[in-house]
């Protein structure tokens, strides 16, 4: 299946020149406009981490405002200028901070940073391909992402500040430049940035899908793919189908903003001035946005699920429990996530019957999520658990997914959502189930595949410190928010000082802020570990985690085309850990069954009658021998 022309070139090349492979690579073609999937993965990762740090700093800034609403911090004025006059963040800039924090985290870190890094790194290496289907498009995908990031950040440098209508940019607020300062140039830049972002995402996604479908090595049928690949593959499909709809929504918004159309606008009197818009509907935008927006949250979480499944299986030294169920639940989530978007719109005035229908579909999607959770627990059961930092983060991902997923059952119930919508309960829900869970999946991936990316090992002890501080910090930050939401405290409020009933939450807000600062500082341990390990880390061996998947059969030193000589052939699924009768507690996918007669099971030959016969012969001779004794 994998004999495309590209490969032949690769193979021939290695045969002829051996180790002189890198002779015609310049600095620019190797590190900047690289078309090698491993380098592009690193570019995505480092850009993603940078954006994450920026978005985290933004969150600390607005947390400071929430914790100390009546204090002044002259340093803020020094740093932010007119956005924070007299030592206090302005109300509008507060909303900008919230908006850009959300946008960067959801799209730039957890979509591009996560999928971009691991799809690029793992797809070719785990399915046995020399590179992506289209390396050039892959390079373009990164550079569009990079440009989108730059444009998004540049909006901090326009006079009126960045977009500030929330990451969901509902019109008319985002459509009327006079409605708030952030709806001026800042919003224009936001829209431009998102269009470029979607272009990047589509180029990446098409590449991932075609690579998985067409370039798998010999023997790698779909049911032998690791769950990481399944997850990244389905994520890419989701993205390809959902992101264009966001572009449609964004383009119509650009028209309303700049060309006087009324797609989203009608009957508007702004500051006492009648506006010439008629016949549009703000709700239309919300449909378009959430048609992407809901699949988007699964675009964010599915790679994290795949990574965690893989990491947990390797480090429990056990096969993932219910591999087929895991794949089918991913497929179920992929399909269902397209028909639940209306749960974000229960109280918008959408037809209540429609709300009822969306409530049914929404609670159905909780079933595959539950199945996944139980399967993870069953994977740990009677395992032999090694606590690498990657394993800890994968476990943290599961814990967060449970805690946050359960509150989804409240929100998915339209009747309960009446009082919970847009409160801190929702903030708690999605920061646990999506924010924290996906970040932990991403960090699990970074710790696990760091040796593959950089050929070095990260420091485990610093990893432990990083994990526990972040894990505890995230719970301290988000757990109390549920109760604020249940007290009816709305999200996106600049201060809780104006309502007498909210003042009792002030001490808890201060506490949350300090927990957030602690968790943020814990990231220094990660960044330090990451950078120092790249240059001075211990050299990694080829298969440091004793893992079965293909990427660990490639040499530590990166070479163009991934494997010297032929691409390995795959004979078995990736989860033969601790198989009874086997010598070691892992059997890589490249080991044929003929070499593991003592550990083969009838189950291994479900669709291979010749192999089964072979096995039966083997077991009967064994039995005969025993009788002789």
């Amino acid at each position: 299946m994998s004999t495309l022309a590209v490969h032949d070139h690769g193979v021939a090349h290695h045969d002829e020149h051996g180790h002189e492979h890198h002779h015609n690579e310049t600095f620019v073609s190797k590190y900047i406009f690289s078309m090698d999937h491993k380098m592009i993965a690193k570019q995505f990762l480092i850009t993603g981490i940078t954006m994450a740090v920026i978005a985290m700093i933004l969150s600390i800034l607005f947390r400071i405002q929430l914790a100390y609403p009546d204090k002044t911090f002259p340093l803020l004025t020094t740093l932010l200028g007119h956005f924070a006059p007299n030592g206090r963040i302005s109300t509008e800039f507060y909303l900008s901070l919230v908006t850009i924090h959300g946008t960067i985290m959801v799209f730039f870190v957890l979509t591009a940073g996560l999928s971009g890094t691991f799809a690029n790194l793992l797809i070719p290496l785990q399915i046995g391909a020399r590179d992506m289907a289209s390396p050039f498009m892959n390079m373009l995908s990164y550079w569009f992402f990079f440009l989108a990031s730059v444009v998004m950040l540049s909006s901090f440098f326009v006079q009126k500040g960045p977009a500030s209508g929330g990451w969901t940019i509902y019109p008319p607020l985002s459509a009327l430049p006079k409605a708030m300062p952030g709806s001026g140039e800042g919003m224009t830049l936001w829209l431009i940035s998102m269009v470029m972002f979607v272009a990047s995402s589509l180029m990446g996604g098409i590449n991932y899908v075609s690579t998985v479908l067409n370039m798998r090595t010999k023997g790698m049928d779909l049911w032998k793919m690791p769950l990481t690949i399944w997850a990244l593959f389905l994520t890419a499909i989701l993205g390809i189908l959902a992101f264009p709809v966001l572009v449609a929504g964004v383009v119509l918004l650009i028209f309303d903003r700049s060309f006087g159309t009324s797609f989203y606008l009608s009957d508007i009197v702004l500051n006492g001035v009648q506006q010439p818009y008629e016949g549009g509907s703000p709700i239309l935008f919300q449909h378009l946005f959430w048609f992407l927006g809901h699949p988007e949250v699964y675009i964010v979480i599915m790679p994290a699920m795949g990574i965690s499944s893989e990491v947990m299986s390797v480090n429990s030294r056990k096969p993932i429990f219910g591999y087929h169920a895991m794949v089918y639940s991913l497929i179920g989530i992929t399909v269902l996530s397209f028909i639940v978007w209306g749960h974000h719109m229960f109280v918008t005035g959408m037809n209540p019957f429609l709300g009822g229908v969306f409530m049914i579909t929404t609670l159905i999607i909780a079933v595959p999520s539950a199945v996944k959770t139980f399967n993870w627990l069953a994977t740990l059961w009677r395992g032999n658990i090694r606590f690498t930092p990657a394993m800890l983060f994968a476990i943290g991902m599961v814990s967060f997914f449970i805690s946050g997923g359960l509150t989804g059952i409240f929100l998915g119930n339209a009747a309960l959502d009446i009082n919970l919508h847009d409160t801190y309960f929702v903030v708690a829900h999605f920061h646990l189930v999506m924010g924290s869970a996906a970040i932990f999946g991403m960090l699990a991936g970074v710790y696990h595949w760091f040796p593959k990316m950089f050929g070095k090992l990260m420091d485990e002890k610093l990893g432990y410190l990083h994990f526990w501080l972040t894990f505890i910090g995230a719970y301290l930050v988000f757990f109390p928010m549920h109760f604020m939401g249940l007290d009816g405290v709305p999200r996106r409020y600049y201060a809780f000082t104006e309502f007498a009933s909210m003042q009792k939450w002030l001490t808890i807000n201060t506490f949350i802020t300090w927990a957030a600062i602690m968790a943020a500082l814990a990231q220094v341990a990660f960044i330090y570990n990451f950078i120092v390990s790249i240059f001075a880390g211990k050299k990694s061996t080829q298969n440091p985690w004793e893992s079965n998947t293909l990427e660990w059969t490639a040499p530590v030193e990166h070479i163009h085309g991934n494997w010297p000589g032929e691409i390995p052939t795959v004979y078995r699924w990736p989860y033969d850990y601790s198989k009874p009768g086997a010598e070691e507690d892992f059997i890589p996918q490249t080991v044929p069954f003929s070499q593991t007669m003592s550990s083969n099971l009838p189950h291994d030959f479900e669709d291979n009658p010749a192999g089964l016969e072979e096995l039966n012969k083997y077991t009967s001779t064994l039995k005969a021998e025993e009788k002789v004794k």
Partner: protein
Amino acid sequence: MLMGTNLVNAQTPAAGTTEDAPQVDWTGVSYYVLLFLLICVGVAVVGKILKIYDLTLKIQGKKGLRWNNVMGFICLVFLLAGLYGAYWSFTVQGSMTLPEAASIHGVKIDEMFTVTTILTMIVFFLTQILLFGFLFKYRHSEKRRAHFLPHNNTIEKIWTIVPAIVLTILVVFGFFTWQSIMDNTDAKGEVAAINVDITGHQFAWELRYPGKDGKLGPKDFKLTTAANKLGVDFKKKSSFDDLSADTMYLPVNRAVRLNIQAQDVIHSVYMPHFRVQLNAVPGLPTFFKFTPTITTAQMRTRLDDPKFDYLVYCNKICGGGHYNMQKVVRVVTEAEYQTWLSHQKPYLTDGLRKELHFAAAEPQQTVSQNRLALNN
């Protein structure tokens, strides 16, 4: 770190003239930076000590620090501390949440909330205990091999079907409750609901009550002027006796239908004590019908808070003033309501009367002028 300036320098006058920005107290900042660096050094020292300890153990021929055991124990400690923390949070912060629902449908919502909470919390505690319990129990040991268990169809079926059934039950109850709450028509034989018009704009709510006829006059945004803020159409009779109000008074135990509108951007009428929320969308009037059951006075005694008031909050991001867009709601007896209503001023003020008389002949022109003004 950023807090540095604050704690040392909290007394910085906020009321200074806008031009001179407050001075940064760099000693305060550097104090916190130093503190952080100190912590880093501390962490590094502890790390080195651990390493040396580890090495000495190995030199003595022992195994060295067994991190898998250490982490396993920390998981157990986290589980116990976490369980206690969750319990503490539920009791202490859980008691700070909203009081009982003050409306008929709100009670139904609260019941459903309780059922959902019980079901989900069982799952929450069970799964988290299993998760961290397994981590401790099955931590790595050289002597053991993991149990090879790729799948088990029976148990997988069970844990697909059981959640499916539980969720179906929740959905069915939720669906019918939701349908009944959102039905804002008056049933046959029911006393007609009081119509109250609530309109959001940046950053306040406007209220309009119907007069004797019980009907609110129609509106058209093109008729909006400084005196006719809501754009009420006075070609219709029903408009003439409409009243404007500052506070939302509602008689207890009578159905109210809020007619919710927005003029500029999306707002959201959120009255958490009544379990009421519906967005106010420009160009799309929405309706929420509910029946308050507890008067403000009763709630004050129940909460033992003489200053308590029901409020409308804005709960959809709408600009800089979003965080302070409130309106007081008073639930009173029928008699109090009638007295209050008789004191409300008509929407049709003298100024508006004059303006209408004057402008009645050429309303079209005002609009087109406005348009011109906007287009340039």
